[in-house]
């Protein structure tokens, strides 16, 4: 692709300009969407679009090595790390809209406009010439040229970077490690804790009906009311839980309404205590 893009014919120039404007609009739009959407996962997807656009631009600018490093390291590794941490800690929590500091967004907007004007004035005053012909780059091609620079001129920063990477890996291990302060609970301890909790049976499984088999359908209690304990607590704030199907009572039997069974104890809990706060407590 870079050989085609580096050629100097007229159609190639037009193609490069078209590609640049498409990528510029896509990256700026994705970056704006990244700071506007509320969910962290959507932010990560928008960031992936920006990074892939920039990788294509690196290829257009005669840096194929950096383009592939951008895709492999950034879009592959770093973004995957972000998604992994989102999966671990933040999947159910959207960012709140409320301003905690009064006028923070207004001040941020003014600061952004000031920074933009400053930087645009800076590059307006700077003498940015046209692109040099790509044959001026030293080395036979891009890859061997970068290798020659890294292992001669920049060999000391390169080794310092290696030390930095080792330090970062050790730091991440130290920070993510958790020292066990209490002895590990044995099977006997877990059994005693489960007995003391008052709930012997596991939580009811989510809805398996004649027509549906899905994790977002709450199970029905014997009186026909849905049991919120049967679905994952992560699903409740996302508002994806389906309403259970209507239960038709048999003819001749008195209809059991939700109002009449509201105050009855939960039949799945032996002691009848409020068990909605106990989800996942039995084995933690």
């Amino acid at each position, binding site marked *: 692709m870079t050989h085609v893009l580096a050629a100097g014919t007229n159609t190639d120039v037009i193609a490069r300009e078209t590609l640049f404007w498409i990528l510029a609009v896509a990256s700026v739009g994705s970056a704006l969407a990244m*700071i506007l959407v509320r969910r962290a996962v959507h932010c990560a997807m928008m960031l992936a679009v920006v990074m892939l656009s920039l990788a294509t631009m690196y290829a257009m600018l005669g840096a194929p090595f950096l383009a592939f490093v951008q895709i492999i390291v950034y879009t592959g590794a770093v973004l995957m*790390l972000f998604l992994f941490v989102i999966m671990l800690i933040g999947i159910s929590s959207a960012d709140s809209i409320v301003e905690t500091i009064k006028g923070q967004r207004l001040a941020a907007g003014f600061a952004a406009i000031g920074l933009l004007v400053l930087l645009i004035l800076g590059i307006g005053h700077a003498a*940015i010439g046209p692109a*040099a012909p790509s044959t001026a780059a030293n080395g036979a091609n891009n890859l061997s040229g970068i290798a020659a620079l890294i292992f001669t001129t920049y060999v000391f920063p390169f080794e310092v970077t290696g030390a930095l990477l080792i330090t*970062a890996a050790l730091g991440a291990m130290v920070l*993510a490690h958790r020292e066990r302060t209490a002895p590990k609970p044995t099977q006997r301890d877990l059994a005693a804790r489960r007995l003391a909790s008052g709930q012997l049976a596991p939580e009811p499984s989510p809805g398996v009906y004649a027509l549906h088999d899905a994790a977002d359908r709450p199970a029905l209690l014997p009186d026909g009311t849905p049991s919120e304990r049967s679905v994952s607590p992560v699903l409740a704030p996302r508002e994806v839980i389906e309403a259970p199907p209507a239960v038709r009572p048999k003819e001749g039997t008195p209809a059991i309404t939700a109002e009449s069974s509201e105050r009855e104890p939960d039949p799945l809990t032996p002691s009848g205590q409020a068990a909605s706060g106990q989800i996942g407590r039995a084995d933690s």
Partner: protein
Amino acid sequence: MSPVHYVALSVILFVIGGVGVLVRRNAIVIFMCIELMLNACNLAFVAFASMHGNLDGQVIAFFVMVVAAAEVVVGLAILMAIYRARRSASVDDANLLKY
């Protein structure tokens, strides 16, 4: 395309990332905005390397990528430690050192 277009685009992306750091309060999103700013700097480096016709800017951009990867690893580990202690990823909740 002239390198000035690429530099202008990198300026715009850098400012958008800065606004994200100032406005958002989810720490993961703040990290992503910092990554966006680093990417914008990389684009400027590569554009200037293309303008000068040598490879020094590309080597610097490569180093920036490596340092950014290390920063993300340590930052996300800190984030996980904070989340373990406070059960929240919001930067408003990590306020023990606040006066």
